[in-house]
């Protein structure tokens, strides 16, 4: 293992301050490359005529993966105390519920 990389198996709640060990620069760069590739794929399928039938579900899938990668690795929710994740998921669940209620109420679907 490179010096800059750290173990990912650290128990999130076992360290002072609720910090797990954060990844190192090499891990961050790997994640950034994956994010760039997914973004390129998103833009590519937008222009592929044969993919139009699956465009919306594919875009949502790609968006979900990118969102999760940033939150888990760059924002360290994968490594930090789970209470932070609970706080964030609470807000996220509220936002998704609001989105669904508004769109169902106005019959957008």
């Amino acid at each position, binding site marked *: 293992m490179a*010096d*800059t990389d*750290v173990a990912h198996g650290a128990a999130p709640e076992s*360290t*002072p*301050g*609720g*910090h797990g*060990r*954060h990844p*190192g*620069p090499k891990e*961050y*760069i790997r*994640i*950034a490359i994956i*994010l*760039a590739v997914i*973004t390129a794929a*998103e*833009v590519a399928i*937008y222009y592929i005529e044969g993919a139009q039938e699956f*465009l*919306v579900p594919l*875009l*949502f899938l*790609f*968006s979900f993966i*990118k*969102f999760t990668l*940033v*939150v888990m690795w*760059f*924002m*360290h929710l994968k490594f930090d*105390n789970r*209470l*932070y994740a609970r*706080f*964030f998921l*609470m*807000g*996220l669940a*509220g*936002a*998704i519920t*609001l*989105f669904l209620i*508004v*769109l169902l109420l*106005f019959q*957008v679907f």
Partner: protein
Amino acid sequence: MASVGRAADAHLVDHPATSTGLPNTKLAIWLFLASDCLLFGALISTYVLYRGASIEGPFPADVFDIPYTSVSSFVLLASSLTMVLALAAIQRGDVGRLRVWLLATALLGLTFIGGQVYEFTTFVEEGLTLRTNVFGTSFYVLTGFHGTHVGVGILMLLTLLGLSFGGRITQERSESVELVGLYWHFVDIVWIVIFTVVYLIPTGNPPVAPGG
């Protein structure tokens, strides 16, 4: 290797005792981000509701330039990378690299904002203003709020940079960099959603104008 391990763990410092055992500042930023989720949830819902409801154009397909916005997306993603590299640097005690990465993040943020200003200017020249139609209103309010968040983030980054020159950002006090980083990454994940929902997901055919 042992010293490297200690350096990597240097951010695992104690903080004033709290009832949760966690730093209140970090809990507070996560609570703030959770509340900001609701704000952007409301704005994105409003946009999705109204984007295809305009009677008169310009419509989304008339003005959006996907290749241009894609470059902006790459710029913001790159700024998230430089932000975590800044955090990794200060957690190793490397203040020099912290400054380089903070400055790079701020410059990438400014590039994104510059791109947004250019995009808005182009749209206005093409006839889409805040008052033109409900698509324009919901689009400018959503992306404008996001741009404002980016602007606030840039101010935070430049403040951190200034503090680092005053010797107030150290390895032991790296949490301030982490808190600003959390805010910056949040701005990035909001853009991930906006880029998909606003720009890439196609709107249905525009409604036929009365008598048209």
